């Protein structure tokens, strides 16, 4: 797939609890619980339901969260993880 758009799960489907440096996320649509550490929460907060390409996401992360040193390969891996667990859909 050439340049997919990554979309967040619906906000109403997420129940989020902050625990020290992790967040616990209950995903109502799946019934699954995920424990996420940076930069996953930041990625989720930035993506939104409209969707962003990986390049656009990288740019926004750099601007809003000062995550400029997150290299492309690492970002791709984090996105793959979020897609695999169902919190993000790639179209």
């Amino acid at each position, binding site marked *: *797939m050439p340049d997919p758009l990554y979309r967040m799960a619906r906000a109403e489907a997420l129940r989020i609890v902050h625990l020290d440096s992790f967040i616990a996320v209950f995903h*109502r*649509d*799946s*019934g*699954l619980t995920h424990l996420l550490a940076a930069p996953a929460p930041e990625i989720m907060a930035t993506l939104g339901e409209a969707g962003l390409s990986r390049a656009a996401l990288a740019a926004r992360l750099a601007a809003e969260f000062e995550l400029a040193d997150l290299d492309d390969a690492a970002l791709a891996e984090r996105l793959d993880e979020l897609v*695999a*667990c*169902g919190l993000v*859909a790639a*179209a």
Partner: protein
Amino acid sequence: MGRAVSDGRLLARMLRTPGNALALDAAGWTALLAMARAEQMIGTLALRLDGLALPDDVARILADARASAAQGQVAALWEVEMARRALAPLGEPVVLLKGSAFAAAGLRAGEGRSIGDLDILVPWARIDAVEAALLAAGWEWVKPNAYDDAYYRQWMHELPPLIHRDRDRMIDVHHTILPLTARITPDAASLLVNSVAIGPGVRMLAPSDMLVHAAAHLFADGDLAGGMRNLWDVHCLVEQFGTAGLAERAAHHGLGAAVARAVRLSAALYGDGAALTPGDHACLRRVTARDGWGRATRPVTRLAFYVRSHWLRMPPLMLARHLWTKWRTKPD
């Protein structure tokens, strides 16, 4: 008053006429609940009895059963969604079978139903592409045994079972609804052509085809294990969609007799009764072979049906070879 019968007909009576349950004593309730659990129908029972003035213990147990069934459906429908995401790049819709279809489409047959694996139907021509897409999306093979794999691929109506490595849930990918070795060969292409959309990228069989599949699953594919739930599915489908055009559709798939029997049996158990043949009575005995402790009873009847179901799936010579090989490779 209380329990007049101590086999599956107790459960059937309560599902057919929920008000009967008010006459149960503690022992009767205990037996009914054990039976319902053993038949995977406690969620269904809980919904049927909703609103009745139940004893406190029972009300609590059934409330928990309803919550459990509801959460189970969330998980099952999520498997549907993840399968849809995995197959979307192929342009292949997910055609759901059995419980997942009933739940996804909000059918009566899905209410309170426990759902196990995800069963989907795909065209024979696309099975390799579907297999590759699922493996890429995190599903893995369950069985490493090479013989079983060759047998499955060559003769069965589905891929060998796949399980998702993170979520630990199974998916069964079918390309027809009976094994290729079976004496009856339904029209798989027609099942797909007549399928009905439930949502974007998700479909189910047409109502008559769902009934044909339920009958095929019950008689020609299985040994009638799980028959009480299967016949409840048939009963709900008939109630919701009626039987117009069903006989013709069943005949087209070569399953006329099986479907007619399924309709008679579900009417006898859950509906307004039916005129039963001697063969029907034998099936009912098998289907209701469950006692008040949830144990399967009537072992001779069950064995007869197990042998019969294998005979239906495989010609005798192949069956002998299959059982010989399995016996040879059995551990210990």
